């Protein structure tokens, strides 16, 4: 699909237009692009660079600076382990380690078959439910290691 025919680019274009194609629109535009495409591939970044009249290096620099932006697609499922302080002292590390060893990947990576991405979050703000993990957008709180292991098997079933 080319830029002209892909409707998703229209969404991105809309954000830039709303902000007057000003260079300060870059981060907002990247947010829209990620929301629409799921992640930021080079083609998208180049498109944004062209439209905002910014060097590609600048766009790439900004996209890689912020943790929120993903340059690679996510897996079919995601498991986000919150590593905020409250979750940390209540044992989030063990949950993360069990996920990493279960799938043989490190936090932030996706399995080769694109089945699952194991991610971490700095703090999801549900500290009272610590430790928390988010499985495909569903938060599960007060996790024990056993529950975490069980939930993940159900998720990928």
């Amino acid at each position, binding site marked *: 699909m080319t830029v002209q025919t892909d409707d998703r680019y229209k969404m991105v274009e809309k954000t830039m237009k709303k902000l007057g194609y000003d260079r300060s629109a870059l981060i907002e535009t990247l947010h829209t692009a990620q929301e629409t495409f799921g992640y930021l591939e080079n083609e998208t970044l180049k498109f944004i660079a062209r439209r905002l009249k910014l060097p590609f290096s600048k766009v790439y620099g900004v996209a890689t600076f912020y943790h929120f932006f993903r340059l690679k697609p996510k897996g079919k499922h995601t498991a986000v382990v919150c590593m905020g302080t409250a979750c940390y002292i209540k044992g989030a590390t063990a949950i993360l380690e069990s996920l990493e060893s279960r799938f043989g990947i490190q936090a932030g990576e996706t399995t080769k078959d694109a089945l699952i991405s194991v991610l971490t979050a700095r703090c999801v703000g549900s500290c*009272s439910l610590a430790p928390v993990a988010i499985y495909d957008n569903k938060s599960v709180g007060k996790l024990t290691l056993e529950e975490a292991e069980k939930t993940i098997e159900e998720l990928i079933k």
Partner: protein
Amino acid sequence: MIQSIEDLEEIASKKKCTEQSCKDELRVCIGSSCAALGSQEMQKSLAKKVKEKELQGKCKVKGVGCNGLCSAAIMVSSYDKANKKEVIYGGIETADEDRLLALIENDIELKDKLLDTNTPFFTQQKKIVLENAGIVDPNDIDDYIAHDGYRALFTALEEMSSNEVIEEVKTSGLRGRGGGGYPTGLKWETVLKVESDQKYIVCNGDEGDPGAFMDRAVMEADPHKILEGMAIAGFACGASKGFIYVRAEYPIAVEKLNKAITQARKKGILGNRIANSNFDFDIEIRLGGGAFVCGEATALVASIEGNRGNPRQKPPHLSDYGLWGEPTILNNVETFANIAPIIRNGGAWYKAIGTEKSSGTKVFALTGHIQNTGLVEVPMGISLRDLIEKIGGGVPNGGKLKAIQTGGPSGGCIPENMLDIPVDYDSLKAVGSIMGSGGLIVMDESSNMVEVARFFMDFSKSESCGKCVPCRVGTTELTELLDKFIKKEAKQSDFDLLKEMCVVVQDASLCGLGQTAPNPVLSTIKYFEKEYLEGIKND
């Protein structure tokens, strides 16, 4: 369009009239913790059931912001308007919905879910910032107006001059709630004095500190209050444009703020010639990208401008050279939330709360090994022990308190035996911690302090923007050194190096992130040196 205080009063009384046709309110908390357990679905389902049973005349189901006691999620309260009495229920599940209906219909209480509001958690709090949390529907501007909303803004516009507004804020003694504690009135006065055609008001809602969720709760529960505070700041300093910089990880907060801005524009509270005056003010939202360093003023400004969030050398300060080079006021969410009550009740009223040098209240997010996790707002000067043991309910399951941590990665640990100090900017600083934005993590005996220090150092390491060497390299080296202690492979010379490097990183880093990153290590060395010494291998 609202053009005067009378218009506000009309809306408020209309709102109260329509509300009085319903005897009671059922308030469902839709704050983050409750929402994670499905409270939004519960609110919808309850509203539907009330409609099916034709109970609308008797009760209104309303979604409200965080009530504070997140450990009792999902929280639902019933409010009896005639007697102004609120009964709070905690730990409500989907299965309890029918019992809630029975409560509305026949006043059958859910005795087993009843929360005792005569406990210190409820009685010892003083709510100013969170006065509307758990009461006002964040999606409804009229509800905010019915609770004195926008009255302060219109009072300022109709009856006060810029200087008078700033005087009130100065009298109140309000200090920046983001952690630094710089007097807000002084900051505003500096910007007022700078001559410029364009000035900006920026609200920092990029709460990146792990373990802190106060600002999130305020944004989700009472978004209009932030808009009002910013508009007053705009009037006081002659700025016509404001930006709220919010974490993209807070989608509910973004949604509520966006909705609030749209509603305020429609009512003429934001826009041109507000209240028929010459004052124009509008607010836009900018999303953060999950970079902790963007909590630093110059980095935040760089990020709004669409750049990498790299801090720069100060001076010039933002009051001279801020957003796009123009004079800018940057305050934290909680600071702005204090403004409307101060203008409404007067600076002297605020000054009388708290202590001499730290007036007012502070919101804390209590987490970790503590009974009542959640949000609390207490007057400054309360002792840490009261905060933890009385309001927080102490360590659960008979555990023993070891230390508390304030200020996140920039703060420090305070051991149990020092808990009698009062909560204020200066006392916390004197013991090697900081007030910070309000995250308060309680740790029991099972916590290893070296590991806690390493956790924060690892955080600072990955959040360092990399611009200056002392921070970029220093935090990496410090993390590696701490690892040696955890593996019990450190030498005595490593301990000396650790201490020395902390001082170097503090002294030589460009911005606050690096300058404060060693604090967790230094404070744990100070109070828990033994645990470091245990990590040293004796050959």
